């Protein structure tokens, strides 16, 4: 069974008197362990779709399911989320931030400390466990957020343009490290971005979305072997795929 199954998902917003159609008839599925990215122009409804998958907002039509179960509310034990802004709690250390979701669940302190320390090591921040967010760089904070997203051991990780606020160098490095983490944990990742390069580099499958109202106009399988090095971004094959996606988006009817 696919981990995620989205069928005929639609979302309308009422803005004043007008009704805005953000998503129209979106359907796709994600298999277990896949790294799937949704890419599309700004305002195409990517974030809206992600919020529906996260259970934060409800769809107007159609449905989304995780492991067969309908998503109508946040399911923190099944779905972890990483936002564009790390949104760490400023008064807690890195480790305490990672522990926070487990703390709320009432998980015993020793158990959660162990698990979260291991997660921090996974994202390469063991030495910074006792540091506060303001002492960490943007990239490091996002790593803590990723570790926190993994804390409840969810099946699915949703990532909403997590590297958009970082500079290019850091962004590329984070992408590379994310693939590492993904390989080690075997989670299913659903990633959204408007960077075509990032999408192709990271994913097994790229879903291309049209401008508003958002629809999936194509599903592109990315066949580069793993583990992937950053160099492939410069390859001809990469460029071809990128151009293809670019044209798909540019020529999509608005």
């Amino acid at each position, binding site marked *: 069974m696919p981990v995620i199954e989205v069928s005929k998902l639609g979302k309308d917003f009422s803005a004043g008197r007008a009704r805005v159609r953000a998503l129209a008839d979106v359907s796709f599925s994600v298999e277990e362990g896949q790294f799937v990215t949704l890419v599309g122009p700004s305002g195409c409804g990517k974030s809206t779709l992600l919020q529906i998958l996260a259970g*934060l907002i409800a769809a107007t039509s159609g449905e989304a399911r995780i492991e067969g179960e309908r998503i109508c509310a946040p399911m923190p034990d099944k779905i972890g989320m990483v*936002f564009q802004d790390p949104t760490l709690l*400023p008064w807690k250390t890195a480790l305490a931030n990672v522990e926070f*979701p487990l703390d*709320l669940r009432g998980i015993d302190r020793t158990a959660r400390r162990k698990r979260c320390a291991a997660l921090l090591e996974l994202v390469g921040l063991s030495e910074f466990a006792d540091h506060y967010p*303001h002492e960490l760089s943007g990239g490091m904070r996002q790593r803590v957020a990723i570790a926190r997203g993994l804390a*409840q051991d969810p099946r699915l990780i949703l990532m909403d343009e997590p590297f958009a606020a970082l500079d290019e160098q850091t962004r590329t490095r984070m992408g590379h490290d994310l693939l590492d983490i993904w390989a080690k944990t075997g989670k299913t990742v659903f990633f959204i971005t408007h960077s075509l390069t990032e999408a192709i580099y990271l994913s097994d499958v790229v879903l291309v979305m049209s401008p508003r109202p958002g629809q999936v106009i194509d599903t592109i399988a990315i066949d580069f072997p793993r583990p992937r090095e950053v160099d492939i971004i410069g390859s001809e094959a990469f460029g071809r795929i990128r151009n293809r996606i670019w044209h798909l988006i540019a020529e999509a009817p608005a």
Partner: protein
Amino acid sequence: MQWRIIKAFAIAAAAMALWEAVVRLDLVSQIILAAPSHIVLAAAQDGGVFLHAFATTSIEIGAAIVIAWTLGIVLGVVAGSSHTLAAATAPVLSSIFAIPLIILYPLLMAWLGIGPLSKVVFGVLSGFFPIALNTIDGVRAIERRYLVFARSIGATKFQTYARIIFPLALPAMISGLRVGTGLVVIGVVVTEMLASLGGIGYLISYHRTLFNTGHVYFGIMLALVMSVAVNIGLTWLDRRIGLWRMREQAEG
């Protein structure tokens, strides 16, 4: 370092001596300004009575602080949670705050008598408004992303309020807590001065009518000690919370 301490002490001693001289030499009337020796004398004569009054006032202030903080913070958090509620409540609170609350004391006197209860109630009234107003501001200022985050990890409403909203609002609250607590202290002491059965304010008034200026000043000193102690406590709190503020600003 030692030299600085010695210097400070020397200056203080000199100031004391000058003060004593000014009164003894009748440069300022004894009735208006009490010499340090008079104050010490007053302390020696009636130290016990004053200490008892100090305790009474402290208890009143303590009770009023606890209640004012609780009411102010709870109302502030509730009103601040909704944009409309905050927009409706804050202006009203702000306008009422402009009223000289002291004129309500005679009403409290008539309703509750001149014992500790009316002082505590007045103290709560005095401190409530700045605390509530600042808490509303603090809660409104919390960015939406924290609330979205709270929902995404499945936090209950209570957990969201207690573990996320409250700490995030704390730096903004603290200035309200400072002002409000200061007003509680003043409120209690002043109403004791106006009409009371006991307490520091009462003693200050009582001795004024007898022109025992030494006692009056001793009482004022004790009231100042109380005010300074509360202030130190608040500064400590402010500093601890200030660390959060710094971190929050850096987090961005």
